[in-house]
């Protein structure tokens, strides 16, 4: 239901199942009911690695997302696992970082980056694998207003399809034309972001 290049917001109260859905799409959780299909591939234990080449996820906590010592190693981690040649890996690292205007961070130590920089590098670490779809879990949490603006602009400029799980309704409005509302693990509303967000009565009901 996510079209090519489409940007969709996933909203819902705490515990509504937003993160669970994202993790299920990545094949990190056993699926008990229903089916997940990516580019015509039905997700199963066997196809998980194929799906992960097509879909990338940026986790909420950048310290979970970035696990290598330096930015360069982190962004190179995905492409290297894809078995690409050294030149190809280097090329992808540079282009991913350049695309996000973060090439100056390349030789930095991950731990010494600011939260905003870590988010950007987190996105770069996914972008370097050139997936068709990017999932983001709370990308704007604990960012200062300026880093948040920069991040929204940056995400808006990407050609990939994006699914953002967030509490940040303002970001949802700016970034995503379409919104899905989850409540206690089930889909309870879907439609144009503007309409959903302007209906305050319904939002209250969803726990937002």
């Amino acid at each position, binding site marked *: 239901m996510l079209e090519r290049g489409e940007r969709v917001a996933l909203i819902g109260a705490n515990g509504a199942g937003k993160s669970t859905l994202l993790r299920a799409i990545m094949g990190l959780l056993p699926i008990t009911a229903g089916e997940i299909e990516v580019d015509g591939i039905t997700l199963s234990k066997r196809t998980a690695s194929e799906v992960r080449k097509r879909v990338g996820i940026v986790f909420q906590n950048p310290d979970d997302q970035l696990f290598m010592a*330096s930015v360069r190693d982190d962004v190179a981690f995905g492409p290297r696992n894809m078995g690409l040649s050294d030149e190809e890996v280097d090329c992808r690292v540079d282009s991913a970082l350049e695309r996000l205007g973060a090439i100056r961070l390349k030789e930095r130590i991950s731990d010494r980056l600011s939260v905003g920089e870590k988010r950007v590098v987190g996105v770069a670490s996914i972008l370097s694998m050139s997936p068709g779809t990017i999932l983001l879990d709370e990308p704007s949490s604990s960012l200062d207003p300026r880093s948040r603006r920069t991040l929204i602009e940056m995400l808006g400029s990407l050609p990939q399809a994006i699914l953002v799980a967030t509490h940040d309704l303002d970001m949802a409005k700016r970034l995503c034309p379409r919104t899905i509302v989850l409540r206690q693990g089930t889909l309870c509303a879907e439609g144009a972001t503007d309409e959903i967000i302007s209906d305050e009565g319904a939002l209250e009901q969803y726990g937002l």
Partner: protein
Amino acid sequence: MCRHDSAFSDAVAGLNTLELCAEGNTLVHRLHPLVKMAVTTIYVAVVISFGRYEIAALLPYFFYPAILIPLSETPGKILLRRLLPALPFSLFGGLSNVFFDHTPMILLEGFVISGGVVSFISIMIKTVLSVSAILLLVSTTDMAVLSRQLAAMGVPGVLVLQLTLTYRYLAVLVDETGTMFSSYMLRSPETRGVRMRDMGTFIGVLLLRSIGRAERVYDAMKCRGFNGVYPASSTCRPTASDLLCLFIVCGIIILPRCLL
């Protein structure tokens, strides 16, 4: 409480200051990591290979840190501070020589200096030299570069990844522990540290949190194609000038050992 709190911040700060140095861009920083690792190892091995009553022959080896510190623009003060933890064990071993070795060694203006004192001085010199050499290695080469080089040298990927991850999550977990500790101490003002009966829960919670983090990290790794094999990374080969530097410096280090 102060002692503990400062221990947490010190550990992180210490790591950070050295890391900051490693971000520099001097002649020494630009040297190939293989050269620096080889030179450091040989230097330390040569220094400890001197006999235990040797002082005079060790002194020329002070040239190494003396030249390298300004050349790599490493702040001497930081280096000195990081050197301190290394001293107690050597001091203990060295002092024992003063007590137990009374062989007369040197006659000085009517005083006899015993072999114990001589070997004590020798041990302390060796300690200062070898530790500063190691610190100079990490203050000019960051962990990412070191682990890439280790992998290129054929060290098993498991161990390299292990080093990388331990190093990466060191500051994160020490920070987290510091926060936990502060909140523990704020609610138990009468104690100096974590009480023994709370120790299991305190460290247990820390452990479960660490494992929780590990599981999330593993998820992130799997999502980026990790299948249990550490992907070897590209390293540039040492240039001719790197190798030349290696041979010259090693020659300078080894030669006095053979002559003296």
